Each structure stands twice: as structure tokens, then as C-alpha cells.
């Protein structure tokens, strides 16, 4: 007897990223010690720099950030294309794009078996037989 599917919503919940603040709140705090909290920070705090602990993102959504930054750069430049804000906004786009591409590269090269195979091609796990 086929069950009727009427009334069941098939749409998956979508998370809308509003901005960096909501991003941080919605990310889980990574387990394990990330910062050595007993490390002295006295060397870092000077000339009004803010140093704060915030949750480390396990899988940062850089792509979302890149998209946002492009939109905000286009907005900032809609007014005056040579103003400081416009230039700084596009610089931010560039920085985030670079970070995104590095993240992609890291993901590409993180296969542990391949890493092991590169250094030890003669071990049992890594031998290839051609006949």
C-alpha cells in the first residue's frame, strides 16, 4: 500500500548567512585545545590592537564570505569609484579570494594515503601490479 506523501515538505532547511557575527555564533567550537591559553599575550597587545578569543571554525564558509564581499564592494563603488571605501572593499574581495583558493588547494592535497604512498611506494598498501 503506497503511502501518500501529501503534506510532507521536501524542501531542505536553508541557512541564510547574514554576516560575520551570525557566522561565528552558528559555528561549533572545535574540540581540543586550539590556543594555548596560558601563553602570555603581552607581546601582541600594543597600539590598540584588539585580541580576543573566538571559536575556531572547523570548516569556514569562505565562499559565502567571498560572495558577500563582492556584493558589498559593488555597493561601495556604486557611489564613488575612487574613494577609499571602494578600494578597500575590492582589496577585501582579493584577500578573501586568495584565502578561498588556498583552502581549496589544501582540501585537494589532504588525502593521507596519497601522502603516505608518495614517500613509501614499496610498502604493501601502496604497491601496484600491472599484470
Amino acid at each position, binding site marked *: 500500500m503506497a503511502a501518500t506523501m501529501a503534506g510532507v515538505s521536501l524542501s531542505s532547511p536553508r541557512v541564510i548567512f547574514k554576516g560575520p557575527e551570525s557566522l561565528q555564533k552558528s559555528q561549533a567550537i572545535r574540540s581540543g585545545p586550539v*590556543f594555548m591559553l596560558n601563553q602570555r599575550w603581552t607581546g601582541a597587545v600594543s597600539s590598540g590592537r*584588539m585580541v580576543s578569543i573566538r571559536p575556531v571554525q572547523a570548516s569556514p564558509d569562505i565562499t559565502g564570505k567571498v560572495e558577500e564581499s563582492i556584493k558589498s*564592494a559593488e555597493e561601495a563603488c556604486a557611489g564613488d569609484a575612487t574613494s*577609499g571605501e571602494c*578600494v*578597500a*572593499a*575590492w582589496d*577585501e574581495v582579493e584577500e578573501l579570494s586568495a584565502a*578561498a583558493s588556498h583552502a581549496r588547494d589544501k582540501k585537494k592535497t589532504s588525502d593521507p594515503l596519497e601522502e603516505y604512498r608518495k614517500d613509501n611506494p614499496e610498502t604493501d598498501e601502496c604497491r601496484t601490479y600491472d599484470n
Partner: protein
Amino acid sequence: MAACTVYSTQPLRTNISIPTSSKTHVGFNQKQVVFYTTTKKSSNRRTNSNNRRYLITCGAGDSQTIVIGLAADSGCGKSTFMRRLTSVFGGAAEPPKGGNPDSNTLISDTTTVICLDDYHSLDRTGRKEKGVTALDPRANDFDLMYEQVKAIKEGVSVQKPIYNHVTGLLDPPELIKPPKILVIEGLHPMYDSRVRDLLDFSIYLDISNEVKFAWKIQRDMAERGHSLESIKASIEARKPDFEAYIDPQKQYADAVIEVLPTQLIPDDNEGKILRVRLIQKEGVKYFSPVYLFDDGSTISWIPCGRKLTCSYPGIKFSYGPETYKGNEVSVVEMDGQFDRLDELIYVESHLSNLSSKFYGEVTQQMLKHADFPGSNNGTGLFQTIVGLKIRDLFEQIVASRAETPVGAAKA
């Protein structure tokens, strides 16, 4: 035979991780022994100025770090260059284990690579507020950069701040111990004259606008949100700051790797074939430029012919003396691409002064990283050659430092 020199140091702004609880303390930091005494004048521990620290540095001639500077705009191949460079010295360079996962530092057995973005004085929000780019010197703390590079060069560990590229914030610092070779890479290694004087060798990666555009398209088109217009707008917006602050560093570099579109294919706009020039400054200590056939003459060479068959568009080399930004230089130029291993080895056997340790070392290094971008053209070739040159420079400096302390002891 170890040579020891005694320094008395000023208290540094950055902390050395030696506990200061007792009155006299002997601490070990690699090959250094630090005697730290506090005078009895004031029992108030807060006044540090009365403390004199005697730093005795003992080493077998390699106690001083050599510092290499690498300048290039974002997206121009610095990371690839770094990986090739560290590979020439042996060992893979990795981020420091157990530290901040977003650290920009790379550490191998002999080399430490520091990203100069860590010396931003303004984080991303700060820069947005002030309307400055990261290219602007106002966004960077050159005093701290100078102090810390100087300290590392003298064999003192430092706590270096971390600039997190993902969040755009300045993270708590990490400990950097003095390595044999320190590479500082970023936008402004040669901008500040004090930092420039600390560099033993400096390199500038100069990518022409067309090639930069093509590379950024390759990098960013896979990213959602980017379009041709946005990539173009981003490059155009950064151009004024780039030309004002970054580009002028070219004149100070000992080696410039210039990447241009090819001249072999008329009206080529794919940007796949590159023309790469290695511009080497004459008269730099411990650096002998690479040349083709005859040092100082002008040569034009097409290796493809009877002995070597190449596919379209082939390979063209040239070499000659020139003047670049007011300096005497020697330029080796390669236009085209390598398709086969024997092309590479053929070319290598005709270049002179490569500072390679055995025949085919350049080819071997290029093959080792065949998956890196530029492994089949002049960018990979010249980056590898510069890596060998730096190794040669390092060995010469170490050898010369080993001689002088022995001489002083005898006298």
C-alpha cells in the same frame, strides 16, 4: 671549533620565554646561554631598566640566520615559489604543528617562511574604516617587522603576531625560533630601508597585467559570486596602491622574475604560453648570475632543431646584459613551454653557473613538483634556479662566517 661572542642586550619589546622568577637564572635557548641578573637596587620587580642581560651566543659559524625577502602581489605565485624553495633545501615545509591552524608560517628543517601580512597594524575592519588597502604602508607595522626580523637574525626567538586571513583578525602570537634560513614573503619586504638592509638576498615577482588577469581568472572563476567584471574591478581598484607602494620595490631586488605574455604566438590572448625573464643584478655579494654560453655577451638561442624536436610554438631563449631601473643586470629569458623531459635536460645542460650540485638537479627538482603551476615553463625553471642560487649563497655565507671567528681566536 665553537666561537663564542658576548653581547649585552637591551630588553626587547617582544618576550623571550625565559622565566624571570629568580635573581640569577641560567636558561638554554638552542645554542645560547642567557645569564640574567637583577641588581639589588630596587626590590620592585617592575623596573626592568636596571636589569642587564648578558647573552652569550655560541655557534659553529652558523649562529646567524640568513634572511631572504620575496615580494609579490597577491595571487602571483608566492606560495608556489615558497614550496619550490623549501624543497631545494630539503624537507617539506609545513605550518607549525599544534599551533593556530590559520597560521601563515611554514617551517621545515632548515627554513622558516614568515608571511609579512602578520605585521598588519590594522585588521580587516580597521582597514575598511580607514579606507586603506593592505598594500598601503599605513596598514603595516614596519617597526615591529624590523625589530623581529633583526632579533631572529641575531638568534633570538620572537613572539610573532598572526594575521588570520579567514577571519581578518589579528590572532594571539606564535613563537618563531631562529632557523638557518628565514624567508620573509609578502607585499613589503623591501619597502622599509631598515628591513631591506637586513636582507641577504631579495627577489621580486613581477607579473604583467595581462598575465595577472589570466591567472586571477583561473583562480577565481571557480568561486561562486565572481564574474569577469568583478575580477577586473578588483584588479583595477588595487592598481593605484600597487603602483605607488609595491612596484617601486623592484629597483632594490637582487633578482626579478618578470612574467609576460608570449611573443611566439602573434595575438595570443589565451595566456597559456609565457615569456619569463630572470633579471639578475650584477655585483651582489655571493651571487653569480646564471648565463648562456658566454658571460657578458648577448645570445639568442632556439634549442629546437636537429638534436631536439619541440612541439608548437617551441622554445626560445635569450641572454644578455642590460640596464634595469638604473642597475647593471644580466637577463636570461625563456619563451615557450617544455613538453618533454629531454627538452628540460637539454636546456639545463647548456645553462652555466646554475650552482647545481649534480648534472640534472634542476630537471629533477622540476619533475619532483610537476603538479605545481609553472612546472613546464620559465616560471618554474627560474624559480628553481633562484632556489639553487640561494642555497649557494647560504653555503658561501656559512663558510665565510666559519673562517672569521677562527681567525680572531688565533690573533
